[in-house]
């Protein structure tokens, strides 16, 4: 048996953090996978210990460009947990609106990329066009398309102008018909069924063993969502459902994310319609000595922050645990036994955090064949075409 080693990384072209995967393959089949992380150490925790509690929010926001609400949300909750204090009601609602807007655009981003990997470039274009509407909504609400700079310990930084709310609701409503069509195109597509169903299965036991979080766990039937389990913000004041599916393959992960976008739209609309009047900021001055933890259900799963204060205006210790940290090891359970063409989408299906630089080389010990990131995408797209041909669609 001739085993070959397929390194993916340290900069992965499809995924969102510089990670290093070592696929040990026999021909097309993946027999083993080694995962290495830690190539993107930026010293964020140390950096935030140098900033004041207020300034650190902006550093935390830049841990990830896509989760630029999740990390500050968890961080501000951790700082508020040091007191502990309750933020004003209006701030809670606005925080929820921003967090859910982020969830929609993050899921749309992932959906578009997944479409691109599978050779559905039309889907990619449509989804990213739809994402623009959400980014416009975020710009109206917060003043920026990403990195919203809305969160601060004790409240939020800027209020939502009541005059903007009708426009925002109109824009949110306008994406629903397109989203419906996308849902039908994705969930009812026979090629995608054949391509994605039954690959990369993460069983419920594995999901629990690996402590998977977020849509990755929910697609495997684990009913785990911080928003339901430990309600914060306005999540216990609005009506929404947790989306759980049970098969755990890549297709189910797509389904969970698509359906979650509808729940997010529901939450945003309810929050904006019932926005309570009042203060938006507690104007916290001195953080007492102590420690606090904060969690938030990010688009990718539970984000966890720990903050220790020694009574000065800077955090003495700050610990961040991003959801991908928990989800990444699940690829040991999902990728093994699949083909290299499928590994692309399975590794991407956990939606790891994005900061990819196109630098990937795949080589075999014989040493002649070199693949780069585009080749891998092509490999994956060719497989979809093959399935289409077999089904007589092309």
């Amino acid at each position: 048996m001739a085993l070959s080693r397929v390194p993916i990384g340290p900069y992965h072209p499809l995924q969102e953090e510089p990670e290093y995967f070592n696929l040990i393959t026999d021909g097309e089949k993946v027999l083993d996978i080694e995962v290495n992380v830690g190539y993107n150490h930026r010293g964020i925790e140390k950096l935030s210990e140098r900033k004041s509690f207020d300034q650190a929010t902006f550093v935390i926001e830049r841990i990830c460009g896509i989760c630029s609400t999740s990390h500050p949300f968890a961080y501000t909750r951790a700082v508020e947990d040091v007191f502990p204090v309750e933020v004003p009601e209006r701030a809670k609602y606005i925080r929820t609106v921003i967090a859910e807007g982020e969830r929609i655009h993050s899921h749309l981003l992932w959906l578009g990329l997944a479409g691109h990997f599978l050779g559905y470039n039309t889907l990619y274009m449509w989804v990213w066009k739809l994402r623009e509407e959400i980014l416009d909504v975020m710009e109206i609400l917060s003043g920026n398309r990403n990195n919203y700079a809305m969160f601060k310990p004790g409240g939020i930084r800027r209020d939502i102008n009541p005059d903007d709310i009708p426009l925002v609701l109109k824009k949110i409503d306008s994406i629903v018909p397109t989203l419906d069509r996308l849902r039908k195109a994705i969930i009812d597509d026979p090629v995608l069924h054949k391509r994605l169903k039954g690959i990369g299965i993460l069983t419920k036991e594995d999901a629990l063993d690996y402590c998977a979080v977020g849509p990755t766990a929910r697609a495997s039937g684990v009913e785990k969502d911080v928003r339901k389990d430990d309600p914060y913000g306005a999540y216990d004041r609005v009506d929404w459902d947790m989306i759980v599916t049970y098969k755990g393959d890549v297709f189910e992960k797509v389904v969970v994310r698509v359906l979650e976008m509808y729940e997010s739209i529901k939450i945003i609309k309810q929050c904006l319609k019932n926005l309570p009047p009042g203060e938006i900021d507690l104007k916290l001055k001195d953080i007492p000595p102590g420690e606090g933890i904060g969690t938030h259900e990010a688009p990718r799963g539970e984000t966890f922050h720990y903050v220790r204060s020694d009574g000065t205006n800077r955090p003495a210790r700050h610990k961040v645990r991003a959801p991908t940290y928990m989800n990444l090891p699940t690829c040991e359970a999902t990728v093994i036994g699949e083909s290299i063409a499928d590994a692309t989408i399975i590794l991407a299906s956990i939606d790891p955090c994005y900061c990819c630089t196109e630098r990937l080389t795949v080589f075999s010990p014989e040493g002649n064949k070199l693949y780069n990131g585009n080749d891998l995408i092509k490999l994956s797209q060719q497989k979809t075409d093959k399935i289409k041909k077999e089904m007589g669609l092309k």
Partner: protein
Amino acid sequence: MKLPKIRELLEAIKSLLTKPYTSKFPYVPHEPYPSFRGQPKFNPDKCVGCLACEQVCPAEAISHRDIVDDGIPRRIMIHYTDTCIFCGSCEANCIADNEGIKLTKEWELSFFDRSQAYETIEKELQLCEICGVVIACKDHLKWIAEKIGELSFSSPTLYQSYLKGLNIIDENILKAYKDKGRSDRIKILCARCRRETTLTTK
């Protein structure tokens, strides 16, 4: 297979009749939403040069340079466009009714040379009349005097700055103190010189 084809045809006709989704950007200028956070700009009339914005800026995008030995003593407030993250902390913490530095809707901020990516304003500085070190900007001292009202008459530095600003400083008032050996106190002084003139005898 027929139904999707008809739908595609309808879609094609519809997109022929509708405007393109993309904008004609370089030819038609882009107008951001009213709440857009663009480049912060100093307002030279309102800014008092207190450096609160420099203190709170998380990205260290605001700094200053004091020029005392060349012409009128002045403080140059510098805002680095390339470092700024447009968070609005400077505006939120501005002591001059949040108007000394304000976020604008300006977003076309590209430069050919990164070393040119900054904006400055100049504020006149007040120096200590004895030792010549920087006390604060003249506008800042005036702002404090206005803020605390009649209490400012407990501090010669404050009320003299205020009165000088109004052009009503009278040398005769100071003359009365000179004979009693207290003329040093009735000056615009830095904290160190005030302590020396008040608490120690030379």
